[in-house]
């Protein structure tokens, strides 16, 4: 058993080190281990298909599609205008706008990469024009895009809910809201100090009328978020059904109300959604096969014994898990991380008395930080490609923002109230 576990994990790490794409690395290491164990190879394919064949996970492509439709329909510009009217008057106005627009857009897209590419392609050039340096502009775009993972609805939360054995999506959605906003505020405080130091400009004067108009403009787009969150929290429909309704709503708003783009562009939007789906869904499949083998080999039990052998102190256990997750977040993709590490670490967290909702949100922010760290950081790659600044330079300029994010993570980890307040209040 132990040898098989070593083979499984060893071949996986070896494969990703020689740059096998993670999705195939998971598959190949599972095959080798299955051959070693003498199990029928069909179990791998069966578990792959079984992993994808889950009704709750249908919400993932649906949220991605709804986000793409809204994004193509010009919602990004509307949300930026709204953010501009609200916080443009502050010192470092455009950087603040960038953060707040991410909070809004995060609700609609639920994806850090979508957020970075939609908002970054508009905001980074205009920030540069106002005298911000390119590295700071890109870094703040990427760091604030992590809010998308926390602000509901988020498809990663759906994956966690499934991996945790069907936790209430409504409670998870509510749990992510305050931490998401908190992350935004933390980044704004940091931005304020940097802006004063570097004398970044104020971009607009506050104008109440303008704020109302831009809110009206963006309102129909923000309703997408309301449909899903209110629908799920209120128990009107499941997350998957809400996501499908959001797609239909986004379609109608974009092509029949906003009408900024023609229906001819719909196949292109579908293709964009498929591009993202194509990476995530098959990864869910191979991670399920890998996770099944890991469970078969009692990997979770082994790690449970090791970690609780070190300490049973809640604070220490959380620290250990956070460090391991930060490491995994750096080298793997988020959805695979969630699927593989939830069954391993959630029982440990629960054993020391941590609420699964609280743990899930810790994991979301933690792995969200992994999206902007090298060597595997999808958001970092997108930030680099839209700004034209190298990954190495961006990673360096991100360091102070990493510190801000890790401090936020520590707050969320050690003050459960930040996460648990809303879910306990609204869905007891």
């Amino acid at each position: 058993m132990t040898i098989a576990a070593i083979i499984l994990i060893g071949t996986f790490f070896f494969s990703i080190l020689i740059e096998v794409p993670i999705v195939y690395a998971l598959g190949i290491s599972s095959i080798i281990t299955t051959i070693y164990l003498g199990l029928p190879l069909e179990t791998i394919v069966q578990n792959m298909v079984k992993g994808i064949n889950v009704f709750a996970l249908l919400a993932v492509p649906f949220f991605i599609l709804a986000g793409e439709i809204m994004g193509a329909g010009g919602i990004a510009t509307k949300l930026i205008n709204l953010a501009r009217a609200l916080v443009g008057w502050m010192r470092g106005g455009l950087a603040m706008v960038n953060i707040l627009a991410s909070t809004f857009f995060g609700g609609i897209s639920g994806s850090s990469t979508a957020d970075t590419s939609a908002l970054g392609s508009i905001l980074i050039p205009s920030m540069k024009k106002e005298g911000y340096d390119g590295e700071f502009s890109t870094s703040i775009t990427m760091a604030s895009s992590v809010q998308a993972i926390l602000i509901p609805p988020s498809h990663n939360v759906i994956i966690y809910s499934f991996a945790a054995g069907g936790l209430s999506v409504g409670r998870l959605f509510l749990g992510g809201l305050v931490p998401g906003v908190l992350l935004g505020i933390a980044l704004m405080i940091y931005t304020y100090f940097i802006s004063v130091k570097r004398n970044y400009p104020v971009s607009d004067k506050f104008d109440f009328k303008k704020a109302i108009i831009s809110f009206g403009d963006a309102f129909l787009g923000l309703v997408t978020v309301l449909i899903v969150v209110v629908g799920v929290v209120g128990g009107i429909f499941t997350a998957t059904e809400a996501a499908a309704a959001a797609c239909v709503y986004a379609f109608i708003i974009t092509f029949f109300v906003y009408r900024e783009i023609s229906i001819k562009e719909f196949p292109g939007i579908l293709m964009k959604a498929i591009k993202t789906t194509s990476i995530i869904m098959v990864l869910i499949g191979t991670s399920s096969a890998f996770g099944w083998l890991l469970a078969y080999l009692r990997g979770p039990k082994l790690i449970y014994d090791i970690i609780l052998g070190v300490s049973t102190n809640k604070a220490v256990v959380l620290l250990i898990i956070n460090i391991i997750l930060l490491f995994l977040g750096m080298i793997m993709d988020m959805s695979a991380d969630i699927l593989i590490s939830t069954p391993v670490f959630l029982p440990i967290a629960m054993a020391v008395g941590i609420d699964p909702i609280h743990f899930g949100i810790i994991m979301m922010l933690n792995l969200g930080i992994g999206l902007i760290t090298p060597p595997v950081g999808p958001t970092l790659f997108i930030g680099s490609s839209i700004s034209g600044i190298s990954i190495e330079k961006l990673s360096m300029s991100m360091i102070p923002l990493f510190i801000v994010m890790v401090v936020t993570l520590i707050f969320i980890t050690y003050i459960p109230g930040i996460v648990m307040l809303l879910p306990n209040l609204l869905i007891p």
Partner: protein
Amino acid sequence: MVDKFDLEEKPSKNAIKCKQKNEKQSTQPCIKTRLDKGVKSGFNIVTRIIEVSCQVLLVTQVIIVFYVVLGRYLFHNTPAWGEESALFCMVWLALLSSVLAFKEGRHLKMRVADYFLPSKVIKYLEIIVFAGVIIFSIFLLLTGISITKLTAGNTMTGMRIKSSWLYLSVPVTSVAMFLVIIEKIYLRIVVGKE
């Protein structure tokens, strides 16, 4: 990060040679270029078929689930095939679209070795990785066929079709993978594009 198997259309050396030749003797088209073009458009058709299938599958899923919601609230009737058929589309979509991601080199990988190893070694590693993907595809083909056969006796309760139709997505995906693999090899070796 630009992928190693970048497939952007760039005129190959042969094509340029052909073009020069053609300009000299304008009446005689270069056979090699025409062959290349024919093969390329063949591969493009395959890709296009996969793309359109994925688009149709995605839209179908959304419509089915939305219809189920409407059905429940408006007509108080939930079709038994609803959930199952949406998931059926999902499995096919997930597997087929992964071929597109492979073709465009969008599957995430950890690029640490790039910083530590000389580019010559990286090139050999790429070949090993490519071989690994081929082996994985062979595995998918063989086990896919066997599981499709094994499930021929089972019926999916909602849609009342054989479970084989669901698992058929696995061998079909591996066939599509092979076509893309052949395309990549063709573009690299025959056309000689770096």
